């Protein structure tokens, strides 16, 4: 709760809204004890006095009543009615929504059909019908406004509840012996309440407008009692001759509703966990670059070469060093594997190459990426865009999420060709069919018209590969392309990639967490831990005799088929958080070979022979052969 208030206070606009709202609400509360004229006493002799007149600060209306007094009393009324309507609508709507969403099935069906029926009315028709039946009056306007808003709340809350009711923790609660009623109260409700509060805080303003509207039409508060809406309604006839009688209540409504909306947005931002972490910001077209140190020179090695690449994430006041100085290179026709666990920085390294790390929060803070001798980090967006897909192409992990759901795969392939080559659509189409054939998609001519959701995971990933091949790139960066797939499908995809590399002389950077995949596909491999390469070399050498204790332990953790039932080797502890990296070796905490000197100073990636590099002061003995 205090965290919530702190967050709210940090948002300056919301704070302004809170202050204004506090002032207005305070004034409304103390109105009855303020030394004001009676709001309903008419004095026709003094009608339409302008503002700042003697004895009437805001002037008087068409019956000579004091506008200031009427304004404050009207504000009191409007606030009370608006808030009451919001509370009633939110409570009833939420109750209906939770019940429909939690029980699902026929209960849900029947309730939601009813709600849909009510939502089939433009809301004011329903409100007018209710007022027509109950008769004009402020209370009836309140009932009408609350009633027409119940369906909106019910539908909103139902949606959230359905999501929560299908969460695994609800199943777990059921298995913990809880009854439905208790699950609703203790498991579902606490997760729905923030949504209810958000929905309410963002609609109170709307409710106030609606009740004011009904009063404006003469269907709400009845004379002589006046809320802000009916004050405006009465002033309308004198709009041209005495505009101040309209402006005063109208401006008040504007101020109140605006303050409430600002406050409501602040409440929403503070309660929504996604907004809270600042996650809901759009990524820039290319990752932001803020290089401080000197740009490392190109040593002429490799078609694509990373030199001391550093990428960080700035989230609030924390800095995550996702990639902490990575140097790699890959030659034409070569497959380089990058292996590591989640959070090791392997994907961020791959995405940094073409500036595809989401930014904010990602920032490239150092190093260089040379493609064919040209530094891509800090290259203008236009250069980067020209090379993306044309020279360096990507294949991503989850093929359903990475293809556009609303374009056919053919259109997506054709676009990939046409953004780099001004060819006719028919020609691009023919090329797209060839591409689909080259990744062994059966019936390519008809498959080209399919949407991604109409294909299986394996077929979608073939489309992803075809798209990467569209412009005959020199380098393909594959970011865990088979992780989301079943093993039998994975084997096929790997075979396709391997053939393509041999046929076309592609350089492939293959990111994975699976040693089996690396062993089968990659010529060389780099092992990453906590944002850095800890070991690098020829795949067969590393697999045969890992030098870094992390590599050797990690390989022992992986169960391999054919070894029977057994106890697995485990690495104790957890990887360090990259916003709080320890001094010295990041793996020291979990290492079985740790020595006191491991925890001090910078460790460098030392070459042990012409192809092998290790970042360790006490590597595994070289003679050690791993039985496999």
């Amino acid at each position, binding site marked *: 709760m205090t965290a919530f208030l702190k967050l709210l206070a940090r948002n300056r606009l919301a704070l302004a809204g809170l202050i204004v709202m506090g002032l207005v609400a305070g004034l409304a509360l103390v109105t009855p004890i303020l030394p004001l004229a009676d709001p309903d006493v008419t004095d026709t002799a003094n009608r339409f006095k302008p503002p700042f007149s003697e004895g009437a600060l805001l002037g008087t209306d068409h019956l000579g009543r004091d506008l200031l007094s009427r304004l404050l009393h009207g504000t009191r009324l409007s606030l009370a009615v608006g808030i009451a309507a919001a509370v009633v609508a939110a409570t009833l709507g939420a109750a209906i929504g939770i019940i429909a969403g939690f029980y699902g099935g026929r209960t849900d069906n029947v309730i939601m*059909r009813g709600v*849909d*029926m009510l*939502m*089939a*009315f*433009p*809301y*004011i*028709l329903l409100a*007018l*019908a209710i007022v*027509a039946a109950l*008769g*004009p009056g402020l209370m009836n306007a309140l009932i009408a406004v609350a009633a027409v808003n119940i369906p909106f709340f019910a539908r909103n809350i139902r949606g959230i509840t359905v999501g929560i009711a299908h969460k695994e923790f609800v199943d777990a609660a059921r298995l913990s012996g809880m009854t439905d009623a208790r699950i609703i109260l203790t498991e579902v409700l606490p997760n729905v309440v923030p949504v209810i509060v958000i929905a309410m805080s963002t609609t109170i*303003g*709307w409710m106030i*407008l609606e009740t004011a*509207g009904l009063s*404006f*039409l*003469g*269907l709400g508060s009845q004379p002589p009692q006046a809320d802000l*809406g009916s004050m*405006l309604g009465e002033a*309308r006839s004198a*709009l*041209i001759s005495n505009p101040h009688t*309209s402006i005063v209540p*109208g401006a008040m*409504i*504007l101020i109140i*509703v*605006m303050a409430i*909306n600002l406050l409501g947005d602040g409440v929403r931002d503070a309660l929504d966990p996604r907004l809270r972490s600042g996650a*809901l*910001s*759009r*990524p820039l077209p290319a990752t932001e670059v803020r290089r401080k140190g000197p740009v490392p020179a190109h040593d002429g090695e490799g078609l694509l070469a990373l030199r001391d690449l550093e990428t960080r994430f700035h989230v609030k006041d924390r800095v995550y060093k996702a990639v902490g100085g990575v140097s790699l290179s890959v030659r034409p026709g070569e497959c380089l594997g990058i292996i590591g666990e989640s959070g090791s920085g392997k994907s961020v390294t791959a995405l940094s190459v073409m500036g*595809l790390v*989401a930014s904010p929060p990602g920032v490239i803070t150092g190093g260089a990426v040379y493609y064919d001798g040209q530094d891509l980090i800090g290259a203008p967006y236009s250069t980067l*865009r020209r090379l*993306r*897909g044309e020279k360096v192409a*990507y294949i*991503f992990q*989850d093929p359903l*999420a*990475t*293809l*556009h*759901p*609303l*374009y056919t795969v053919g259109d997506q392939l054709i676009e*990939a060709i046409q*953004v780099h080559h001004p060819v006719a659509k028919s020609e691009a189409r023919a090329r797209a069919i060839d591409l689909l054939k080259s990744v062994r998609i059966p019936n390519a001519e008809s498959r080209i018209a399919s*949407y991604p*959701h109409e294909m299986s995971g394996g077929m979608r990933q073939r489309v*992803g590969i075809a*798209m990467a091949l569209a412009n005959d790139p020199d380098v393909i960066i594959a970011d865990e392309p088979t992780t989301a797939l079943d093993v039998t499908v994975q084997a096929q995809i790997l075979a396709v990639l391997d053939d393509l590399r041999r046929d076309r002389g592609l350089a492939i950077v293959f990111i994975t967490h699976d040693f089996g995949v690396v062993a089968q596909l990659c010529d060389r491999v780099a092992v990453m831990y906590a944002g850095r390469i800890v070991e690098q070399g020829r795949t067969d050498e590393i697999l045969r005799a890992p030098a870094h204790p992390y590599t050797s332990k990690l390989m022992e953790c992986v169960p391999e088929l054919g070894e029977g039932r057994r106890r697995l080797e485990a690495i104790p502890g957890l990887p360090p958080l990259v916003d709080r990296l320890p001094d010295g070796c990041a793996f020291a905490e979990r290492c079985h070979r740790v020595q006191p000197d491991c925890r001090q100073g910078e460790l460098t990636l030392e070459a042990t022979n012409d192809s092998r590099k290790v970042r360790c002061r006490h590597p595994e003995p070289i003679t050690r052969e791993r039985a496999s």
Partner: protein
Amino acid sequence: MAGYILKRLLSAIPVLLGITVIVFLIMALIPGDPATAILGSYATPENVEKLNRDLGLDKPLVQQYFIWLGNMLTGDFGTSFALNRPVLDEVLERFNATLVLAGTAFVICSVLGVAAGVVSAAQQYGLADKAITFVVLLGISIPSFFLGMMMILLFSVNLRWFPVSGMWPIYGARDIWALLDHLVLPALALAVVATGVIARLARSAMLEVLRQDFIRTARAKGVPERRVIWGHALRAAMVSIIPVLGIQAGFVLSGAVYIEMVFQWPGVGRMLVDAILKRDILLVQGGVVFVAACYVLFNIAVDVAQSLLDPRIKT
């Protein structure tokens, strides 16, 4: 596609019946006796009883409903006692005027709202975003009737750019230019709130979409940024924007009631408010059912548009 439209039209039948039931039930709640209200000072027990019989009000509720429904299906919505004119004629004439006003406002708010939302999202935290966010906040906080009044004051009374009220000039030709001249202010006043709501939603829908993996794929292909935003991202965002356009159409139609009052626009909203104040029940019933039915049909059109956009919806 034709099959899908037909299916949606058929599924609208229960909704339309539901609407008539709801309207009928609400009206049946009315305390007192419509005949007494109609006859006013002419109400004698005999007159009241006769009128009740003429109106069919002595029959059981269920029977009354089916008679009313049957009559409506044959185009007989009854006769407005206050106007002494068939309800349907009056509603059709008034609805025409509302359609001109609300339709214009709807087009304005859809185009402006979506465009503002996209620009705002693409320039998140930039100058354009801040300006749009502020204007939008102002838009959703101002009562449309107050805005309308202020516009009259500024543009009609002080600047004399547009007429103060009405749909047509009192003298002179009733051509399209005269209509446009009268339409500008009320349509703008009506569009402002919905524009704000749509812009906010479009912004957050765009922000949501821009974080998706397929946007990264488009960028990785080398698609130019303009096309990423206005092509890939907007198209995906429209999936969540279109249903809101349907809901906002209802809000525009609702807001038209206030705007018609402020600008003396001869639309169905003003007719309904007058009818309520005069307790002209048949006119209220007929007007509400007619407009609600039109809205249901409009929402079917929205669903069809959605299914054309999103191939994942089964047609």
